[in-house]
């Protein structure tokens, strides 16, 4: 059965790096300071095994330093495992270092030959692919100019075109598709799909879970040198996101704990104004199930809890909230007057909860402004960037927020 043929077989692979504390590479140093060349062994992979079937696409995910890039380097045979075996069937091409061996003084055409030769192509094979490569790169007009005259986008386009036209049986990709403009990215993506349909096995390492979900049949989550989970990307990616969100939460808390004191007065200048009759004491965000967190997945409910203190009663009080992206664009804003909340007076310290339902903001960091005003917009305490939330989205849709939608073709 050709369908179930194994293209990549990884068995119990371990890898550690020696981190030299003080390395002497010279004879003198080796002899004189033999004891000094101490090193720490850092185990990056602690025994991972997986198979990839021919024509399958898998995504390796995990946080920085988890060992996914090392795994990919082992697959490309740039490095070798300390123990365990890796078997690959067929020609391997990698989109890890695009443009390896490019010579700036040589023309685009000559560089195609040099670069493709590094992938193990013979002159004849390159001749046969030359037109495809040039066409795909969209650089026909510049192909005889030296590569140093290219813009970085053109450079990457040429490099990508070579790598993807190698006709490899196994394609290894590390954080791609940051290549060129949106059009070219889409083209690369389509090409990848096409290649996959032709039966090429693909392994992708990426932080962009959206890309993985679009191409891969399976995700493998590597955590601290071990496979933590594997399965359909949609499930594994969510599990991974969940974990990351919890982790980030902890980090943010730690950072907050460290900086709480300084934040009181000086840092607030220019970020905070108003009469001061009442003051916002603290802003927290909670998930629907009541755990305090500041990273949320798209579509989740977010509960904002605002504690305030009152020095002098404020009658005709208005509470407001504004959501801004990092470019300072307001994504949403409202207040109790707009929402026609009956007039009220705040005369003692209290807490207000704002429940934001199904927040459809796309992935990224957002600043929240919280304000207490009086009457027709007299600021009592306007607090810019009072809180920060992180949105996580695995899909590739673009914009500020998601519009729920369906596609329906009338044929």
């Amino acid at each position, binding site marked *: 059965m050709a369908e179930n043929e194994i293209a990549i077989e990884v068995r119990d692979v371990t890898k550690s790096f020696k981190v030299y504390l003080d390395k002497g590479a010279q004879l*003198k140093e080796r002899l004189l300071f033999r004891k000094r060349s101490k090193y720490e062994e850092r185990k990056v992979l602690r025994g991972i095994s997986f198979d990839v079937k021919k024509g399958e696409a898998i995504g390796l995910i995990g946080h920085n330093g988890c060992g996914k890039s090392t795994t990919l380097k082992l697959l490309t045979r*740039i*490095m070798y495992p300390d123990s365990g075996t890796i078997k690959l069937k067929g020609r*391997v091409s990698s989109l*890890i*270092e695009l443009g*390896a061996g490019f010579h700036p003084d040589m023309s685009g055409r000559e560089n195609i030959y*040099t670069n493709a030769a590094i992938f*193990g*192509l013979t002159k004849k094979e390159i001749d046969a692919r030359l037109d495809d490569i040039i066409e795909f790169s969209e650089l026909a007009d510049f192909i005889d100019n030296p590569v140093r005259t290219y813009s970085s986008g053109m450079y990457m386009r040429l490099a990508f075109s070579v790598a993807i036209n190698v006709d490899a049986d196994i394609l290894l990709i590390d954080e791609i598709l940051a290549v060129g403009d949106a059009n070219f990215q889409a083209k690369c993506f389509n090409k990848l799909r096409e290649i996959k349909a032709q039966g090429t096995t693909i392994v992708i390492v990426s932080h962009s879970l959206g890309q993985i979900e679009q191409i891969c049949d399976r995700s493998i989550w590597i955590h601290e040198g071990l496979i933590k989970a594997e399965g359909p990307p949609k499930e594994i990616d969510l599990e991974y996101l969940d974990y990351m969100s919890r982790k980030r939460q902890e980090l943010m808390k730690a950072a907050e704990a460290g900086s709480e004191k300084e934040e009181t007065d000086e840092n607030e200048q220019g970020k905070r104004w108003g009469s001061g009759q009442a003051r916002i004491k603290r802003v927290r965000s909670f998930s629907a199930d009541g755990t305090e967190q500041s990273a949320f997945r798209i579509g989740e409910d977010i509960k904002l809890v605002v504690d305030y203190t009152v020095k002098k009663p404020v009658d005709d009080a208005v509470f407001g909230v504004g959501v801004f992206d990092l470019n300072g664009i307001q994504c949403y804003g409202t207040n109790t007057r707009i929402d026609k909340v009956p007039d009220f007076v705040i005369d003692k310290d209290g807490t207000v909860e704002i429940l934001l339902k199904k927040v459809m903001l796309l992935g990224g960091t957002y600043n929240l402004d919280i304000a207490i005003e009086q009457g027709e917009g007299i600021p009592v305490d306007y607090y810019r960037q009072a809180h920060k939330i992180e949105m996580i989205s695995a899909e590739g849709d673009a914009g500020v927020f998601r519009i729920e939608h369906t596609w329906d073709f009338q044929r």
Partner: protein
Amino acid sequence: MSTIKELYDYRQMIFSLVKKDLRGRYKGSVLGFLWTFINPLFQLIVYTIVFSKILRNDVPRYYLYLFVALIPWIFFSSSITVGAASIISQKDLVKKIYFPRMVIPISYVTSCFVNMLLCFIVIFAVIIVTGAGINFVAVLTLPIIMIVEYIFALGMAMLSSAVTVYFRDLEHILGIVSMAWMYLTPIVYSKSIVPEKYLPIFNLNPMTPIIECYRTVLYDKQIPDLSTLLIAAALGVFFLIFGALVFNKLQKHFAEEL
């Protein structure tokens, strides 16, 4: 065996690296490719002045006597000394992309070899211009001598390039070694003036018969006794296999060491 097949698959890469090396070596210098010839010519002039005018010897046409030995020697010595740094100088490639690592020493030695071939054009020009004369039958044995030298040089380059990755001093040590080696090989003098008791050592040096053969063909205009090359050829093959084995073992950690 699979290594050889893989190297064959990567032949285009070897070609293109050789081409790049030959074209890129003198890029930006005014005289450009001419340096390939100027360098050995100046060495030749210096040695000729020192050894035939100052130290005096009775070898007729000493410049030619020296020239036909010097050019093959330069090929060999640059293969091992500059070749030692060849992996390090390609570290960007080695760290980032897979290809059989042997491609690097092979293409470096090959580009030195091509350089030597080009210099042979100059040798023949000198022979013709000075009317020294050529024995065409003897010249037909030249390729055999060259191949033996190439094999030996390649084996040594594999050893030196792989070990230098781990032990950078080797590059400089080899500079000294190659100078000593040159004077221990009959290049500026003839083997016949070597005292008898030292001869066994000289015969162990594979470069001795190789250089002698070049000289027999081009200077003495005689068909060399190729059997003297047998030991050199055997040693060459030995070093090539040994070099390749060591290289294969050491190359696994290149990416981490560089």
